[in-house]
Each structure stands twice: as structure tokens, then as C-alpha cells.
């Protein structure tokens, strides 16, 4: 319980046009993962299989974009974007980018979702995993990793 697993905070991939922050598909994480838990998904983005991930953090260190972090495996609601550009710029960079609009912050019942530097983040200590932010996000940048409230990827 409360085990940590890796998360790639990007799901732009093949949809990505000009984002400087997202996954570049270099494959460093895929090759370094000792558990074979990371593979490219249909969007061309590295994606962690949480059932295999042991939370060792090797990919976190390795990722040249610095967009992989460890998160609480019990918190399935995650933001898969790392774009810190202002909304106007972020909007054109990728069709699933966080534009820092603050809707997640507004609908979050527990104060867990907060926008800082044009990018939303979820405080997993406070998160109730309700997924209201994921359902309301106009950019589909927030995911329910269980695939119930949103697509899995």
C-alpha cells in the first residue's frame, strides 16, 4: 500500500507539434527500466505499466526531459502534462496540454489540484481520487489511470 510508481507526465506524443517540455520518445526510460514496465503507447509516449513498476526511480533520474516522477500508486488521478508555458502558447503546442485554466482547481473538492507556473499539479496527500478534475478538464490532460472516468491513455 502507498507504494510509489513512476508516471510520465506527458501524453502528447504523436499529437505533439511544438512542445518543448514533453516526451521526446528517446526511449531512455524504456531501456533502463529493470522491470520492463515502460513502453511507448499509441501516442508515441513512454507509458508506465503500474502493475510491473517497482518504483525504483531509475527512469526518473534518466529522463532527459525530467518529466517522470514517482507518485502514489493508490492515487489513480494524474496530470499527464509538463508544459509550463502560458495557456495561449501551451494550447497551440499540443491538443492535450494543460493550459493552466484552473478548472481543476475550482472543481477539486479537497484543495488537492492547484495550478502553479501555468501547470496543474495534484497533492496526493489531499486527493480523494474522485476524478472530478479529470472529468471536467477541457484539455483532457488529466487521466484516471484505471480507465474508468477517462481513457487509460
Amino acid at each position, binding site marked *: *500500500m*502507498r507504494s510509489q510508481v513512476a508516471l510520465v507526465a506527458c501524453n502528447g506524443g504523436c499529437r505533439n507539434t511544438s512542445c518543448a517540455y514533453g516526451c521526446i520518445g528517446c526511449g531512455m526510460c524504456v531501456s533502463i527500466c529493470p522491470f520492463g514496465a515502460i513502453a511507448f503507447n499509441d501516442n508515441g509516449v513512454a507509458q508506465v505499466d503500474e502493475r510491473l513498476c517497482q518504483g525504483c526511480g531509475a527512469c526518473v533520474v534518466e529522463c532527459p526531459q525530467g518529466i517522470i516522477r514517482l507518485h502514489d500508486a*493508490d492515487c489513480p488521478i494524474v496530470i499527464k502534462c509538463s508544459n509550463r508555458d502560458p495557456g495561449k502558447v501551451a494550447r497551440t503546442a499540443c491538443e492535450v496540454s494543460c493550459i493552466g485554466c484552473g478548472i481543476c482547481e475550482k*472543481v*477539486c*473538492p*479537497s*484543495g488537492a489540484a492547484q495550478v502553479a507556473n501555468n501547470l496543474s499539479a495534484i497533492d496526493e496527500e489531499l486527493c*480523494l*481520487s*474522485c*476524478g*472530478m478534475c479529470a*472529468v471536467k478538464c477541457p484539455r483532457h490532460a488529466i487521466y484516471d489511470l*484505471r*480507465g*474508468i*472516468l477517462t481513457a487509460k491513455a
Partner: protein
Amino acid sequence: MATFYVNGRTVTVQRNQSLLRFLRDELHLTSVKDGCSEGACGACTVIIDGETCRACVPKTDALEGKHVLTVEGLSPWEKKLYTYAYGEAGAVQCGFCIPGMVLCTKSLLDRVDDPTEEQIRHAIRNNYCRCTGYVKIIKAIQLAAKLKREGAIPEPTETDWKLGSSVHRLDVEEKVLGYGKYPDDWYLENMAYGSAVRSQYARARVLGIDAEKARALPGVVAVITAEDIPGENKVGHIKHDQYTLIPIGGLTHYLGDAIALVVAEDQETLEKAKKLVKVTYEPLPPIHGPEEAKSPDAPLVFDEEKTNVQAHKHVARGDASGAIAQSKYVISRHFETPWTEHAFLEPECAVAYWDEDGYVRILSTDQSSHTTLHECKLLLGSEKVRVQNQLVGGGFGGKEDMSVQHHAALITYLTGRAVKVKFSRAESLLVHPKRHPFWMDFTIGCDENGIIQGVKASVYSDTGAFASLGGPVLERACTHASGPYNYQNFEIDGTAYYTNNPPAGAFRGFGVTQTCFAIESLLNEMAEKVGISPWEIRYRNAIRPGQELPNGQIVGAETGLVETLEAIRPYYDAAVAAGKPVGLACAMKNSGVGVGLPDWGRCKLIVEADEKVHIYSGASCIGQGLGTVLVQMVVTNTPLGRDDIVYERSNTWIAPDSGDSSGSRQTLVTGEACRRACEKLAEALGNHPLSDLIGQVFYGEYLAKTDKLGADVPHPVSHVAYGYATQMAVLDRSTGRIESMVAVHDVGKAVNPRSCEGQIEGGVVMSMGYALREQYPIDENCKPIDKFGKLGLFRAHEIPDIQAIVLDKPGLDVACGAIGIGEITSIPTAPAIAEAYYQLDGKRRTKLPLEDTPYERKR
């Protein structure tokens, strides 16, 4: 449009809506409770494709092909399993969170055969419970897992319903399976929906109300304003100062004041129509707190009042100032305690309709159906009102006032329509009275041995926008500020101020949670000064049978404070010996209203055609388990068995008025009335079968007679009984978090020991929130700013080990010796925790929630 499956059945939903609304309003699967519709509370938890999920979050269009499971869709064996496990563990109190918890249980046990306690806590950590402190829910899940592995469900371990037996509560099944009805679970034919347009300003004069556009909207049934009220506009417990609707020309008192009532055919039209009601105001500067309210040039909160002082109390015996002046050790400190929201899981809701006898029938969730009756009769100027309690999803003092009941009654009376008036969670947070914030200055004097010589205090509170129970709360804060100790020089002066904040009223502990924090914290500091332990200073001063409390009352043989101290001693000594930071505090709390007020318990036992005895008492079972208490009382005091007895929920036309579920009074006061009725029934019964008594009524009543405050008698009886408690907190030095809580309570005869433990665990966790984290911040417009999920309520994975110890000491010769437990469970917790932090880091904390702890939430 989407097609998916609900409990295995294919459903096609045309109109895109939240899954919660579809399940409740269209399929009437009312086990799925609407506790907030914000994603916070977890009461609407369902299972979607094997994963727990709140039904209020997804829209139906997003569910194409998915499988949704509610409690109604569990297999018969699972239903039996969870009913048994939750009943056996004593996990069900108000029941509102329970169907959600049950589905979390199922989801966990479907994956894990033998879950660890940590896994269980994590499985329910996103679901709030305000009654149980989660302890017994965790036990229920452990038990369910064991029985599931074994594949067999045994009989309950205790089946004798006599007093002292931990039988399963009588309402376990209907709450676990979700078929028991709270008001919101009623869907009457041709039922309209009503809701109030509330003030835009905390303080403003209403200049005009234009409802034409709203009335013209198709689907709107009516817009009701103050001039439509047939009887008295103002309601209120003691003082009638709560406006049902603010009239044109009238002053608003807070943002929760209702100005117009809108009635519509459906909930969507209702929300649209509310926005179309245009109210014009002359905004006026609001009063933000007592400091402003007491200033000589402060504007008045009420047009009708000459001052912002809502209540003033002065309690004095002996010579406090003189005694303190002669004391070897003297400590003076200032203390502050915050607003607290009750956060019961079920928001306020009432359904009203004209019944077959021509009465306005109100189906309510409140702490006294007779109080609701009384207030609604005045409002309607009519005797033709009947009130019936439904299941009550928690109260804790927050459902003592009119919130929705009077609005529903008014709508039905004026429109003839059946109506449901239900608060959104935001409305509930804004409107109902909260726990009073207090500001307190205390001085204590002790001799060289730590014997208290005198205590002098001055306190004031913010009672907000109407009186509610502000006066009695202040009084109880003052009368109990002395603590449960034997000394004779005590003086306290207290004032409650009206402000334009939300109102404050009753809240578990009723003022004593506040002053107890002050006096107990002072005693802890004094112990250090004298050079004795916090335990020792209490043991030396503890009130003992035959001694005189600072209020002059001589306490009887039932007084068990010393026993609670003795029972906790091994735990205390062990923690101290292990070098752990540990804190201790004591409390007393009255059982019964006391101070000379007419405090009646009444009960009727009627033998009906089904050859069973039906218990009727106008006393609300709000989740504390009163129904079970009364059945156990009847089984104990008659030759009848459990199966001969039916408990009827409180109503106002058969069940006699038995007062509010307030002041920890129902077990004792209504319990004694019931016992008296039992005597008559048992006598009539003799050796006859029940069928010989069909149609007979056996009536019992009991007056808990007391003397009024300041009565000119040598030893006034302030209250018929007191419960006593000692609680302690132990910290983990490495994390700074609470490792364990031990709570020892003297409750006289424990009617149902497991139920009693449940009250204690729930009270302790509630006050851990009060001590460490819960807040109810109010902004410069007198608006409460936090949502339910931000209040800081404790969650299942955060609670420490809690030991609830129920002493079984013979009580009074009323109610078979049972004394109430409801409130005291929450009283000594905060000062015990504050002392534990002092032991950890040497900082005296005099303000709640405590600062500089790992639980603190920075804003």
C-alpha cells in the same frame, strides 16, 4: 445517449446527466446516497468495471458499455455477509456512509482474500465517516474478509437483548443494504422541488424582490416571499429571531438568510428559476466578529435589538479572586477555539405533503420531530401539521434548528403540492448553526500541593446571525468551565455576541469542548509548576462521591471520575516509562438539559394488532442508537423478547414529546420514561399472552428535575447526572503524529457496550479534527470559504490506534443506571493532545487547531 449496465440490467439513458442523478432519480436506487455531489464525501460510491468510483463524478454519456454495481446488486450471500459483519462489529451508526463503505469492502475483498489492516484503511480512505471514527468499519471489513474465506456466516455472538449485551443494532440491515429511507430517498407522486434564494450580502436591507421572470418560466410552480407567510415569520428554539424569509424592508443577518422560496417541477428548472429572482439590496457593512460587535459604535445586527449581546451569563460561588490571591501558584492564560462544522454525511432534506387526514405531513431528518412541529405550527398559523422522523444521517447538534423543514411545510401549505427541499452541501455548510468559536481568559490558583483554590474566567463567543442555542451553549460553557473538581471558589462571566457570520448553536459538547480546553490546559501547566504529574494533579482534585462541585451540587455515589483516572493509569505510566510524549485530560458532561428547565422523557408502549409491543417516543434516533437502547430497555424490564417488540421512528401524533436529542439526554431521560412504561406493561401482562392486551397503551413519563442556575438553595441540583471521562494521547516521537488515544468513560450502566465504544471512537476522532486540523474559515464578506473536502476531517488511513474503555459502574436508580455518552466523548480530547505536544516540544499551545504539528494545514 448511452447504453450501459446497472446491476446486470441493460439501461439506455437518453439525457446526459450525472450517474448519481440517474441512479437515484430515475432508477430509484437510493442506496447511492447524495452527500455532496462534489466528489468529496464518498457516500455515492458505486463500483464501475470493478473499481470504486463516486457516482456524482461521471456523466452517463461517458459510461457506454460499462458495468455499474450498487449495493442493491450484490448477491444475496454478499448482502447477508456485509449485514452480519457490519452489525457484529458495531460499524453502523447514522448509516449514511455505509453503502459506500460496503462497496469499498467488496471491491477490496474481490482482489485480496486476507487484507492487512493497512490495505483496509486504504480501501476506505477516500470515504468519509463522521460517526464511527472508522475503527469499527475497519473491524467489520476484517470480519467480512474472514467470513468470506471461511464461506459461512455464523449467528450473532450476543442475542440476548438485555441491558449490557452488545446486540447488533436494529437498523443495521436497512442501512447496510441502503433500503432504509432518509427524507431524500422519498420520491412521491407529483412531487415538486423547492429551494431558497439566499442573500447576496451578509448585512443589507432588502429593497425589493422581483419574481416575475421566475414565475413566468415554464415548470415553475410558485415563488413565495415573506408576505405569503400565514403565521409567524420568525422561528427559533428559545428566542424567535430566525427569519423564515426576509421581508422587503427587512435586514439580512448572514449570507444564509432566505429571501424567497422557489418551487418547480424539477431540479433543473428550480436552479434556473432561482437565478431569475431579482432582489435589490442596500448593502450595509457587516459585523465580522465579536470584537466589532462589542464596539460602542457598532451597527446592530438586528433591527429589533438594542445591543449585539445575544446572551450574558455570570456564574459565581465562593470568592474566586480572594482564593487566587492567597494561592501559592497562579497561572493566567488566554485561549481561543475555532468555528467547527458538524459535517454530518447527510445534508438537510425535508419532504412535505398533505396527508390523508388533511395535515401537512413533514418527513424530516432532525433532532426533534416535536420541535419541528412546534415551529412549523407557529409559522403556518395552523394546528394541522404532523412530523415524522426518517432515518437521520448524523446530527451532532447541527440538526436541532429549522433549516429545510419549515420551508417544505410552507410550500406544501401554500401550493398544496408535495415537495422536497434539499440542501446542497454548500448550502448546508453555510446555513446551519456551527460550533461557537470562543475567546477565553482563565486564571487558576493552587496551593503547594496542587489543590485548586479558585478559578476565575471571562469568555465570549460569536453566536452569529441568530440565537439558535447560543444562550444555553454559553451557559453550559460557563457551568462546566470549572472542570470535574472539588473546589468552591469559582467565578466566570460569559457573553455571546450576534454578528453577521453564519449562526452558531449546538455541537456535540455544547460549549464544554471550548472551556474544557482552557481549564484542562491550565491544569497541565499547573502540574508542572507544582512538580507533580498531570495525572496526579487530577487525582488529587477529582470530584468524589459526596463532595461538592464548584456549582454547589453534591455528587452522588455514581460519580466515577476517579475510576476513569485509575483505569487509565497503567496506560499512562507505561507511556511515560517508555519515554513517549503523553497528554492527559478529564471532563464531565451533564446528561439531560438541567438547570431547572422542564426536561421530560415520555414513551408509549402500544400493543398492536400484530401482537407486538410498539415503542413510540418523540425522541430522535440520529445514529446514536436510541432505537436499540429502547428495545433493550423493554427486553430488560418486561418478560418480552426482541421479536415481540417493534421500534417506531419518532412522530408527533402517536409518539409523545420526549425532547430533543441533545445534551446526551435520550438514553437517560427517555430510557427512564420507557422503563416506567415497561413497569405498567409488565404488570398488565402477568401471565397473559400479548394478544390479550391488543389495543392497550402503556405510558411512561419522567421529569429530570433540577434547580435553576443560581437557585437560592445550599446545594442546587444543576443536572440529574454527569458522565465522566479521562482521555490520553500518545505521540510517536519520530513522526510527531498521534500513535494512540486511550479514552476511559464512566457511563453508568452501558446499555450496549459495543455501541458505547462506537460513540467514544467517533467522538475521539471528531475531536482529533477539532484539536489538530478542522477549520471553517470565513472571509471578509462573512462567507465560509471551504468546501466539505477541505474542512480537514480525519480520513481512515490517518487515525491512530484508539482504545475505548467503558467503565461499568452502577449509575443512578433511573434508566437502569444508564447515563448518556454522546457528547463527553469529544470533550477532553483536545487538551489531552495539546499536552502531548507540549511533552514533545515544550511549546504551550493555547489555540485550536494546534499550531506546529504535522497535521497542520498551511493556507
